[in-house]
């Protein structure tokens, strides 16, 4: 290999190493120290997509990774380019999304001298990356790139930063070192432990009120199919986290919906009352437990399966742990199930069906409500469409009402909850899945945090359909001020809002105002059938709330439902 690579520049070596990892697209934004790389890119088959802000390129790489299951790659220059990536890297870290983040850096001779556009991005990102590299010798590039991709996608995935000084990229005639990985300290947990699998099956056969609690680890492990088989075989009720939505298709009879702060009443009652909680690929986030780990599922024996041993007993005391890959563990569990008698759960299911009957997710479908928009879109676009969302009320309405059929059809910012994620994530999703219909469901607050990315949509002629639920306020904050601060509203009015249809049109994107309930279906039909990008601006009431809601400091059964 070194024979043929003799004489390459650092930049060319880097691009070749990226190709070797199967990279076909980089989301990036150029700058001074990256000039050697952008020059070399002209001769590389890798596609580069220019964002409009570095935060946009990292979110696009994230959206790409979520819907494709591949590692997302983004690139930004030194200094401000790199610091603008920080929120996006944190977002990927929070949700365990595999990214390789390339940052330019000042030449090695200038490092540490506070030179123009110099920032210690490795120091800044240390707590929010799985690992990071600064490459000071171009001969290390093939190994570093190989290790970075391996780390990003294996085990519990996450973002890896590679900082690239300009002289390392510019150096000519580099004879690379072998690309063999040197990761002595890196452990990956694969299969579960056989005797423990038997114990889980045993616990299941003794349970009277079991429940399966599924999260992002199911997505990462591509365990959707085996999870469904396991749930059906053992006849288990299933609740999911926001990250775990799609692990059973919406409408599946075993699915009780999301658990936690904006979960369904039934999901929360079921978890609270269960005697066996089988947690798969979850981390008992405070949006699920209300931050009250010691009061969560208190009657239950807790079995926690996760690839990251750190998560076990971190929040909720675990009675049985299995560290490993969710798909492998569930497969092994399915294998041993026939050797165990499964309990009769008819009484438990009777109880659950009663809860469901008494506590349906309420919504008004006779006026122009956000729930009507989401449900109509679900009807017309279906579960096979790819959905990206921003963060806020609309995100919860999507979680509650959109019929997501597969985990990989959904890109939303969960752990960090970043407004502005949606539009660039939709860009990444559309580029990863050019054949699929990609919808962005967003709010007027969130959209304005990344509205410049309409330029990326226009430049790349991406047929993204934007469903804007426009209430003219920061709805989630307004709802909290209304409920918990006596309606003393402060700084939630977005009075300077533009006409979003005109903004879209200014970018050459079609826009439609939807101001009455009878226009909803027609407008959405047009979007679904549109071959190009389109923005639908739905005028909704600021008074609409996300319910149910577990108020701060309350346990998950103490919900406000109306």
């Amino acid at each position, binding site marked *: 290999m070194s024979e043929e690579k003799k004489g390459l520049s650092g930049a060319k070596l880097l691009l070749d190493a990226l190709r070797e990892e199967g990279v076909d697209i980089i989301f990036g934004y150029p700058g001074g120290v990256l000039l050697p790389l952008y020059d070399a890119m002209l001769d590389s088959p890798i596609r580069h997509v220019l964002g409009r802000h570095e935060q946009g390129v990292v979110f696009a790489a994230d959206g790409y990774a979520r819907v494709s299951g591949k590692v997302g790659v983004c690139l930004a220059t030194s200094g401000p380019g790199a610091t603008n990536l920080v929120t996006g890297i944190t977002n990927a870290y929070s949700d365990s999304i595999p990214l390789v983040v390339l940052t330019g850096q000042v030449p090695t001779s200038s490092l540490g001298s506070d030179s123009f556009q110099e920032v210690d991005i490795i120091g800044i990102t*240390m*707590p929010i990356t799985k690992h990071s590299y600064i490459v000071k010798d171009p001969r290390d590039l093939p190994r570093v790139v190989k290790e970075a991709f391996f780390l990003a996608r294996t085990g519990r995935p996450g973002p890896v930063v590679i900082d690239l000084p300009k002289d390392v990229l510019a150096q000519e005639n580099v004879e690379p070192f072998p690309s063999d990985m040197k990761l002595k*300290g*890196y452990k990956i947990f694969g299969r579960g432990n056989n005797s423990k699998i038997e114990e889980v099956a045993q616990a299941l056969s003794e349970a009277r009120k079991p429940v399966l609690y599924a999260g992002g680890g199911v997505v990462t492990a591509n365990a959707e199919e085996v999870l469904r088989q396991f749930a059906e075989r053992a006849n288990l009720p299933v609740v999911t986290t926001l990250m775990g939505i799609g692990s059973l298709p919406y409408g599946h009879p075993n699915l009780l919906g999301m658990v936690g702060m904006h979960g369904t009443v039934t999901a929360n009652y079921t978890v609270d009352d269960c005697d066996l909680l089988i947690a798969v690929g979850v981390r008992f986030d405070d949006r699920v437990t209300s931050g009250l780990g010691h009061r969560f599922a208190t009657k239950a024996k807790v079995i926690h399966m996760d690839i*990251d041993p*750190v998560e076990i007993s971190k929040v909720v005391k675990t009675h049985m742990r299995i560290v490993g890959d969710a798909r492998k563990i569930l497969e092994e569990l399915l294998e041993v199930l026939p050797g165990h008698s499964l309990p009769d759960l008819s009484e438990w299911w009777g109880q659950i069906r009663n809860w469901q009957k008494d506590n349906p997710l309420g919504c008004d479908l006779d006026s122009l409500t956000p729930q009507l928009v989401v449900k109509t879109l679900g009807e017309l676009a279906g579960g096979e469409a790819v959905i990206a969302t921003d963060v806020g009320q609309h995100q919860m309405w999507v979680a509650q009402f959109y019929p997501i059929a597969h985990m990989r059809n959904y890109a939303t910012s969960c752990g960090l909850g970043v407004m502005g994620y949606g539009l660039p994530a939709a860009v990444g999703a559309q580029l990863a899945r050019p054949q699929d219909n990609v919808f962005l469901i967003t709010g007027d607050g969130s959209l304005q945090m990344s509205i410049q990315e309409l330029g990326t949509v226009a430049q790349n002629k991406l047929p993204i359909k934007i469903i804007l639920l426009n209430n003219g306020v920061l709805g989630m904050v307004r709802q909290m001020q209304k409920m918990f601060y006596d309606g003393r509203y402060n700084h939630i009015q977005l009075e300077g809002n533009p006409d979003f249809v005109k903004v879209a049109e200014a970018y050459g994107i079609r826009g439609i105002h939807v101001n009455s309930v009878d226009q909803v279906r027609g407008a959405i039909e047009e979007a679904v059938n549109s071959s190009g990008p389109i923005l639908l601006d739905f005028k909704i009431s600021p008074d609409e709330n996300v319910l149910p809601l577990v108020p701060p400091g309350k346990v998950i059964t103490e919900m406000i439902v109306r």
Partner: protein
Amino acid sequence: MKHTLAVLVENRPGVLTHISGLISRRAFNIESIAAGYTEEPDTTRITIVVEGDEIEQEQVVNQLSKLIDVIKISDLTAVESIQRELALIKVKASLETRSDIINIVNIFRASIVDVSRETMVIELSGDETKIDALCQVLEEDHGIIEIVRTGKIALSRGPIPAKA
């Protein structure tokens, strides 16, 4: 309770920052941390003394294990081990008090490594309580000017190394 952890890490720039950053970010209660080279040139060994219950201790070990540059962690609390700390103590010493200080130093099997007209520097290695005891005597009877301590280092007894 206190746990003594032997942490073997890749000898790379930034690895100590990584470890200390993680410890402070996760609000772990660390009593001491001591690092140095080992028999293998690319490995650094860090001895960390951590205070906390079983669950906290497990979190420290698991969180540190997640760092890519951490090769191995052994809990030396559970096995027979030798634990030592080195201290240098600069104490006030006049012509009149020197002989008393020498007596104390002999009792503790410490040694005097520097003498000036007004001070002496004493070197002592041993476990934490021994060093504490010497410091207390010197402080009360003579007055200490400054102290430097390395933090605890530890090695298991018997043939099995921490890296095994």
